[in-house]
């Protein structure tokens, strides 16, 4: 385990009948970072998080928390995807109970619960029953319940679900503060724009396996193979796009081009450039067949990287399946 990892998964596998839910998954989460744990529905994220929390056990591999295979439940917080609260219990009592379950003394839990209610602007609802709160407020309450005891590791599965944009910002502030206090946040969410703003590192899971992982820049490099170059050109009416495409493909083989017609009648040519490639011959090839009006590099958002990677993985799976079927 790297010395700075608070949580480390080593070749973890989980199978349900014929389904390999998690397949030799390895990653580490460091103290004080937000780790974005991404993947499409059914990728194995929740199964992995449940194993991290000791709710289910891996079939193979091991999970180390602070160097030990013995999870200290008092030092972790968990906001599960399948979550709920006691509908008929008072709001304050619910938070105190969740704190006590994590090993807090009743007095400390009460103090922390009151502070959190104030922070969430729910002080006036402390004595009300949970089911009188709006869905968003219940969601905030559950987030507070997961981190009330200042855990070393907070595992948050879809924490933005049901929150309006203002409360999403509040949740993000809470997570940043936790990290500033040294808490490691393992975050699984489908709101990729928020995750992109929040997470220090990412891991994309598909069909139980890691597709890519690292910082956003590392992920971009892994997903696109380098930078996306956008060249705005004016084509000669007679030749059209074909000569440009042929020229580019000569310099960079493969299917790496996308066209877009701009409002002024010009064309935007998007080229995925492999890492370390000299751009001059590429631009020269384009300029030989069109008038270049501008050049820009594009930084793909996490959303785009995610979609590309998952679709590419699915395509590979379909190809493999058809090859197997075809013998």
């Amino acid at each position, binding site marked *: 385990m790297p010395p700075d990892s608070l949580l480390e998964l080593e070749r973890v596998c989980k199978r349900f009948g014929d389904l390999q839910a998690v397949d030799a998954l390895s990653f580490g989460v460091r103290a004080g970072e937000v780790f974005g744990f991404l993947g499409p529905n059914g990728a194995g994220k929740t199964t992995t998080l449940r194993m991290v929390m000791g709710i289910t056990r891996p079939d193979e591999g091991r999970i180390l928390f602070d160097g030990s295979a013995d999870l200290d439940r008092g030092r972790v917080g968990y906001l*599960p995807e399948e979550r709920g*609260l006691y509908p008929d219990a008072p709001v304050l009592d619910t938070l105190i109970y969740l704190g006590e379950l994590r090993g807090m003394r009743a007095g400390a839990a009460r103090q922390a619960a009151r502070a959190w209610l104030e922070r969430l602007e729910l002080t006036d609802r402390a004595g009300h029953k949970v089911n009188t709160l709006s869905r968003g407020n219940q969601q905030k309450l559950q987030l507070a319940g997961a981190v009330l005891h200042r855990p070393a590791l907070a595992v948050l599965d879809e924490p933005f679900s049901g929150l309006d944009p203002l409360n999403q910002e509040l949740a993000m502030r809470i997570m940043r503060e936790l990290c500033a206090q040294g808490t490691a946040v393992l975050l699984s969410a489908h709101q990729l724009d928020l995750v992109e703003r929040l997470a220090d590192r990412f891991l994309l899971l598909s069909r139980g396996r890691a597709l890519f992982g690292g910082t956003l820049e590392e992920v971009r490099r892994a997903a696109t193979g380098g930078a996306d170059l956008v060249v705005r050109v004016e084509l000669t009416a007679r030749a059209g796009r074909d000569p440009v495409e042929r020229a580019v493909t000569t310099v960079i083989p493969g299917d790496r081009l996308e066209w877009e017609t701009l409002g002024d009648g010009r064309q935007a040519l998007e080229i995925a450039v492999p890492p370390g490639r000299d751009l001059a011959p590429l631009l020269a090839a384009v300029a030989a067949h069109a008038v270049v009006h501008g050049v820009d590099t594009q930084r793909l958002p996490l959303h785009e990287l995610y979609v590309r990677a998952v679709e590419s993985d699915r395509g590979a799976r379909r190809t493999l399946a058809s090859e197997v079927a075809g013998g």
Partner: protein
Amino acid sequence: MAERRFEWLPVVRWELARVLRRGDFIASVLLTPLLAIGFGWLPSMLAGGGRPVALAVVRVEASGALSPARLADTKSLRWTAPPGDARDLAALERMVREKRVAGAVALAADFADSGRATVLMRASRPGWLEDVRTALRGEARRERAAGLGLDSTALARLDAPLRLQERVATAAGGSRDPQAARAERLVGLALVVLMMAVLFSTISYLMIGISGEKQARVTEVVVSAIRAESWMDGKILAFTLIGLLMALAWAGSLLMLGGALAFSLPVSVRAGSLLVDVAFAILGLYFYNALFAAVLATMQGIESSAKFQGYFFVLPMTPLLFLAPLLRDPEAGWLVAVSQLPPLSPTLLPVRIALGAAQPWEIALALALLALGGWWMRGVAGRIFRLGMLMYGKDPTLPEILRWMRAR
């Protein structure tokens, strides 16, 4: 997975607070003794509250004419002359039919010799009929004794009570006063009935506490904080305590009411016997709560109880099947054996103890087996819950449950 010490304790406090604050629980604790008393006393209150029944009594002469007769009043009967002018038996019968009297007794002229008398009533076998029979037997005795020339002193000598000294030789050795044995039997049975009543009253709260929380999706939050087994331990303990509180409230209110109504309480019950009965009631409550918790852990919701799990909820009633043979022969070998089994011992052993038929080793063994059974069952409940809690939308099959029971 590390287990903190007493991590089940917050669960006990939480469940106690949740249930004890419920309005329906408070109403149930307060109203049940009142309802029980009401159902026991209301019919007799409505029927006259213990006032004696007034019956007409006459003697039928050989001519068929009626003449006045006297019988001694008792606690339940007051004898009167028939109202108006009842000249014959037909007239007396008409009076009864027309509800001018509750009933009437016509003694034959030769009642002392023949013992013949006619009892007139509107419904067959009224409640006072047995009292009338007793009164007539006494009257016949008196008249026959007078015919034989015996005065009241001689008759009193004849009726002098026997001074039998009854001793019950107990299986545990030694002997007991039968009145004390009867009192202990009464207390033992009362505790068994109390345990059953409490058990069936707490099932609904246990259902809310286990399968209800599965439906509310609280499960995963809690079992990420403490072990599933600890959660179940806390719940089983909490619901056992709730049952005991309920039993204390009910027993206390019934005893207070009994005291207020000047009932004689069975003071001759031995402390040891009472302790054993209480131990069986508490351990029985714990065992059945653990069993029900295990069963509820297999269910998605209350609607699942329509399936095979429903049979487990009638398990506490099965000892009733053994009661008749047990009362006939409490020392039968097969009854000694079955009364050791944890599902049956909380009911059968107190009855056998009350009958003086249980040896000390049987009591000790049954208590030990019951405690071990409860402990084992709470482990089973925890395992089933841990392995089955994430099975949303589908009830587990019996083979799956059996596999979970054996899992580590």
